């Protein structure tokens, strides 16, 4: 019996996944309509962690609002702060010292590796493999320790400020990053041996959650999820900011469009981030870590938009200024929000058990979606 997919008829089963569910990594609530084991419709219900950050920012100064963005996509906290700092600098036309730029890019790439590490462990755990989580956290903790030493925090770093970074690097920074690079390189083969090459894992990933390039563009899917469908959407390459245009790295593209392709994009992206860190770690220029800025920042009247590539995709910061000390309106274009909107399209007609693979490879962070 062939029924119209997406339409609820008598006999369909409607189930809730979340808001408290181990596979949704936070308070995501999915209402799923099933026909037997087949998914007919996935409807996300949001708002469990909606804090109205955009409204709060309207009463915060240009130095203060950056700190709320660490609480959006908390796994890419550095990169969120970076986007806001860049947007304010664009408005004020502040020239950032080269040392600060290099430090920022180093921190961004370390964050990206840490974020992908967490995703890799958590996604394998969603699919029933427990061990990879511990392997991923072994490397991730090393990065968190490096962050803690320099920024004073492990998760919400708040290190980027308009004009540069908040404080200079810790004297141990270089040697600890080099130790991390050594550790990572000696362990990376375990990732493939444990998970990538596993035939059970591959059977659960290949052909699951297919998203064509055309649909990825239409749904606004960016980041590794978009690049898994063959859409070139790496902001670092397309619209380079900071020193990315001078660095040697490749945009990772896969064309299969299934969960396995998205998985491979993230794994290979970690290698590219390592490449960037290696280029920079011995070449941090001397100089100021922060440009001289006024105590009270006032953006000129106008509109400013800045996008960056977070671990999840394209983050956009849109500031409308009326010339005051606080923004008139701020909009954060969060990558997770658009990526989630494609989930329904990706999973329709597939089995319920495969939903976890599709959701896992989208790498959803719920505070980023709800804001």
């Amino acid at each position, binding site marked *: 019996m062939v029924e119209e997919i997406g339409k609820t008829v008598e006999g369909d089963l409607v189930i809730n996944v979340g808001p408290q569910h181990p596979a949704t990594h936070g308070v995501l609530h999915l209402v799923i309509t099933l026909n037997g084991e087949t998914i007919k419709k996935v409807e996300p219900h*949001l*708002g469990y962690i*909606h804090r*109205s950050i*955009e*409204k*709060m920012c309207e*009463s*915060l100064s240009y130095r203060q609002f950056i700190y709320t963005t660490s609480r959006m996509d908390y796994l890419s906290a550095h990169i969120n702060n970076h986007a806001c700092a860049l947007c304010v600098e*664009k408005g004020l036309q502040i020239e950032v010292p080269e040392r600060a730029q290099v430090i920022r890019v180093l921190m961004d790439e370390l964050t990206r590796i840490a974020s992908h590490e967490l995703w890799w462990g958590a996604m394998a755990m969603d699919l029933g493999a427990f061990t990879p989580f511990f392997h991923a956290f072994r490397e991730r903790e090393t990065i968190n320790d490096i962050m803690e030493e320099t920024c004073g925090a492990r998760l919400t770093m708040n290190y980027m400020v308009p004009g540069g970074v908040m404080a200079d690097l810790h004297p141990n920074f270089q040697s600890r990053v080099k130790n991390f690079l050594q550790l990572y390189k000696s362990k990376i083969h375990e990732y493939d041996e444990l998970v990538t090459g596993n035939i059970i894992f591959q059977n659960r990933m290949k052909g699951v959650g297919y998203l064509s390039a055309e*649909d990825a*563009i*239409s*749904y*606004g899917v*960016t980041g590794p999820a978009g690049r898994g469908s063959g*859409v*070139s*959407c790496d902001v670092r390459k*397309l*619209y380079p900011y900071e020193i990315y245009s001078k660095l040697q790295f490749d945009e990772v593209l896969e064309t299969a469009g299934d969960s396995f392709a998205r998985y491979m994009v993230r794994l290979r992206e970690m290698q590219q981030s390592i490449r960037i860190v290696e280029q920079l770690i011995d070449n941090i220029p001397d100089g100021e870590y922060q440009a001289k800025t006024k105590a009270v920042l006032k953006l000129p009247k*106008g*509109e*400013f*938009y800045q*996008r960056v590539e977070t671990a999840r995709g*394209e983050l*956009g910061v*849109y500031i*409308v200024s009326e010339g005051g000390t606080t923004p*008139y*309106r701020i*909009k954060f*274009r969060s990558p997770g*929000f*658009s990526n*989630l*909107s*494609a989930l329904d*399209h990706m999973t329709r007609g597939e089995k319920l058990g495969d939903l976890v693979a599709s959701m896992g490879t989208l790498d959803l962070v719920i505070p980023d979606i*709800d804001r």
Partner: protein
Amino acid sequence: MTNEELKNALTELLPTAVFEEGGEWINLYLEASQWKASALTLRNLASAPFNFMFCLTCVDWKTHFTMVYHLRSTTSLDNIVVKVKLDKTNPEIMTVSDIWRTAEMLEREVYDLFGVQFLEHPDLRRLFLTDDWVGYPLRKDYEDPINMIKL
């Protein structure tokens, strides 16, 4: 394409568009009644269609609302910003969720937080707030003594 060339091309395509100076990208204003047809034109351009809507939002200017659509072409990498002024008392505009699928959720967000009605939207419900919520929090005149958002 440089901004100047792009502006000339767009003037030919959309003769009623009013351009706004300043800003990083081309800003153009359209009438709400022409938005849907213009959106289709922009999406289906032969050379470099604006196929990627990377941001959709609304700004409350106290006297009126402005819908802001950021569009980009994945082939030519051009960006444009389309703005549509809406009435304060009865904000209404046609949905574009059938042209750019990402707009479906983004329009629900704007409906939820600004109260803009998107005509012919397939599923216009509140997204973040509960269904019985009164008022639209991102409007400038919104006051809520219980859930304080002003700091």
